[in-house]
């Protein structure tokens, strides 16, 4: 206490108190604030498995029909009588669209009036496969789910034993490495910088779009997510079908994105999230010049007059 008493009238004491109080508040808030629910849906690998269209129909009836309509033709706000319950037509969207929207947790959506962010997936892989099969069969076909492109890595919770899980993980990693390593990175770079970077940014960090929309960041997206997004064209994104960008070129493009993301930051441990010049300028001012000015204050400091 003597230590504090001796220094409480120090010119910097006020700032120290404010900083300590802010740190206390911040840390305290982090403790008591509700943490987001990280529960992972119980997913079962459904690849090339059997699908249960009846189950798909039941899921559709429960979770999708209120907005997309019983006939899949979509419903307007006037028809549903609610500002937060309307949806576009699902005619001809195909299984890939269902897989993309539901597996990335964007559907079911709480509010169709705002862009849906990526969220934990609500249905298991098997249920999504059932639902996709139902939508495909009931409302007309579209692009199918590209099962040959690696999706999300298997989770421990999906398997009964460690051995099964490890076998599945090794299989997944082999496929992933083969797919991502198989593309021509130069072609991928040209395609990405010409077609994708002006919204998703050079690093895949995403970016702002018009009308309050944004291009999502690609770091969480699996190769299959990116592939499906290209053939589906969600939101403001154009469709890149196989005539525009062939499957080999899509693989090259995905290889480029994933290779860039895996690339270590050669320039130092602090990559500034690869935001680039804005973050660099911010650090230059807040750390660089501030530190040097603080040193100038330090070396020219003298005893203060007594008052």
């Amino acid at each position: 206490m003597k230590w504090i008493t001796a220094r409480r009238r120090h010119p910097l004491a006020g700032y120290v108190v404010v900083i300590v109080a802010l740190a206390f508040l911040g840390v305290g808030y982090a403790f008591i604030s509700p943490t987001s629910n990280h529960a992972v849906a119980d997913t079962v690998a459904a690849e090339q498995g059997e699908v249960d269209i009846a189950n798909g129909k039941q899921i559709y009836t429960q979770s999708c029909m209120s907005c997309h309509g019983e006939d899949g033709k979509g419903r307007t706000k006037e028809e549903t009588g609610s500002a937060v319950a309307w949806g576009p037509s699902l005619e001809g969207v195909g299984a890939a669209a269902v897989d993309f929207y539901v597996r990335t947790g964007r559907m079911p959506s709480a509010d169709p009036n705002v862009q849906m962010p990526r969220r934990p997936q609500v249905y298991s892989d098997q249920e999504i496969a059932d639902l996709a099969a139902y939508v495909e069969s009931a409302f007309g076909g579209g692009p199918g789910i590209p099962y040959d492109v690696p999706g999300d890595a298997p989770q421990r919770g999906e398997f009964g034993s460690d051995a099964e899980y490890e076998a599945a993980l090794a299989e997944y990693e082999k496929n992933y490495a083969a797919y991502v390593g198989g593309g021509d990175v130069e072609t991928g770079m040209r395609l990405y910088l010409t077609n994708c970077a002006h919204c998703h940014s050079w690093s895949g960090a995403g970016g702002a779009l018009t009308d309050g929309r944004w291009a999502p960041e690609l770091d969480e997206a699996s190769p299959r997510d990116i592939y499906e997004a290209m053939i589906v064209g969600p939101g403001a994104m154009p469709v890149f079908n196989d005539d525009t960008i062939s499957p080999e070129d899509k693989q090259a493009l995905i290889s480029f994105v994933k290779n860039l993301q895996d690339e270590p930051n050669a320039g130092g441990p602090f990559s500034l999230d690869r935001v680039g010049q804005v973050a660099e300028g911010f650090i230059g001012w807040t750390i660089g010049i501030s530190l040097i000015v603080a040193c100038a204050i330090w070396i020219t400091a003298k005893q203060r007059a007594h008052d």
Partner: protein
Amino acid sequence: MSDNQAPQAPKALRGIGNYIDDRFHLAKTAEKNLRKVFPNHWSFMLGEIALYSFIILLLTGVFLTLWFNPSMSHTVYEGSYERLRGVEMSEAYASTLHITFDVRGGLLVRQIHHWAALIFVASLVVHMLRVFFTGAFRKPREINWLIGVAIFSIAIVEGLFGYSLPDDLPSGMGVRIFQGVLLAIPVIGTYLSFFMFGGEFPGEAIIPRLYMLHILLLPGILLALIAAHFIILWYQKHTQYPGPRRTEKQVIGTPMFPGFALKAGGFFFFTFAAITGLSAFVQINPIHLFGPFTPTSITSGLQPDWYMGFLEGSLRLFPDWFDFDIGGYAVVTGVLVPGLGFMGLLFGGLAIYPFLEAWITGDKRAHNIADRPRNVPVRTGLGAAGITFYGVLWLAGSNDILSHTFQISLFATTWIFRIALIVGPILAFIITKRICLGLQRRDRATLEHGYESGTITQLPGGEFIEVHKESSPETVEVLQSAKYQGFRTVPPTVDANGVESPAARGFLGKLRIRLAHWYTKDNVSFEDVVPHSALHGEQRTEEKAGQH
């Protein structure tokens, strides 16, 4: 050595010293200059940061030129960076990759060069703000202020050109915007662009040309201007803040040798350490991740370095409502005004300000004592308004990053910044001026009443008072400096016979009188203040008892 009492230097050194002095007669000059006095205040060290980071830029820049190949001829990368091997690119980009991955220490030096550039321009700005707010640009230092403005503007262009050299994705986009602004200049725009690029964009000529400008012409000019800036500073001596024994004719501080030289030397190494520390730990401009520039490539989320940010912001904010055609030729005011007009506004405004203020106040005297910003509220307010205007443009340059990071609609940010650009400076002026006036009032109160000691005393009559104590002589001197301001009074416009003074006639004369009045009218008067004349305390209460 003129001082016979000083211990003798070793014989060998004396021999060399005498040899040199016999030929060049340096001893006298050296002694005079080594004893030159530098006032001690942290804000006088800001310009030195710029000097030191410039030295670092020169050193690292020379290192980089040893390997950089400023050529736009095509090549296929075969270096050690696996991800880009086999990719077609320009020699400039390939050699930058070579520096990054195959030259020992190359990446570190590249990052030091880049961070030092950011720090260099930032220190120019803080140094210039110090000079502005303390009125150190006034006579006799106007010329040095102009040189400083020139250094600032050339440094920005120098930075832009350096950013453009590696021929990576951002540099190509920067050059493209630069060309767009050139094209917007009426009549000569297309000719200028063709001249600059030696044909269509991007051509093969631009990088060798920018390289010549970046490593030869502009640094040469900068070096000459910095030397001139420094020589003038040396000759005119430093300004100093008010204090005891500090007068217009006498500088109080640390002599150049050994005190100040030691501090300055240490400060150089600290600046170097801070920049190198940033470069070692924080990645900057990772050109190997960006990839090479091709005219079809484009990316979002990419900005120029911070010092060009205000121009980027003005381009993003300024609407295209005023574009028009003359006989089928478009005059693109939407690019012309923000691209060149705002730059002219910034540098022109900075250059003209000392002369404008001298004209308004009619103050033609030389000033070596710096103003305290609060004592010149209008200038301080104008400075704050300028900072706000610049700051809003600067923020607007990153509006897509802000929009994405803080999840604000992009269109909303544009309108927020457009409104803030007009309202912000006005608010900043009013608020700053009010704060200054408040501080003036407090200064006057402290001067008259002393400072509150925190001691509570009960008087015999039962009244409690807080004892006020006399401020130190230093504080009194500092507070009283408000008295010595040159332009407190507006000259009389009408003489004793009712004849209007010549200076007050005509439109300009009347305008000047009104501006001078506006400049000083709200200042708190210190004319009749006697320090400690109204000290509350035991010894004074008896005298004052009758007045209560």
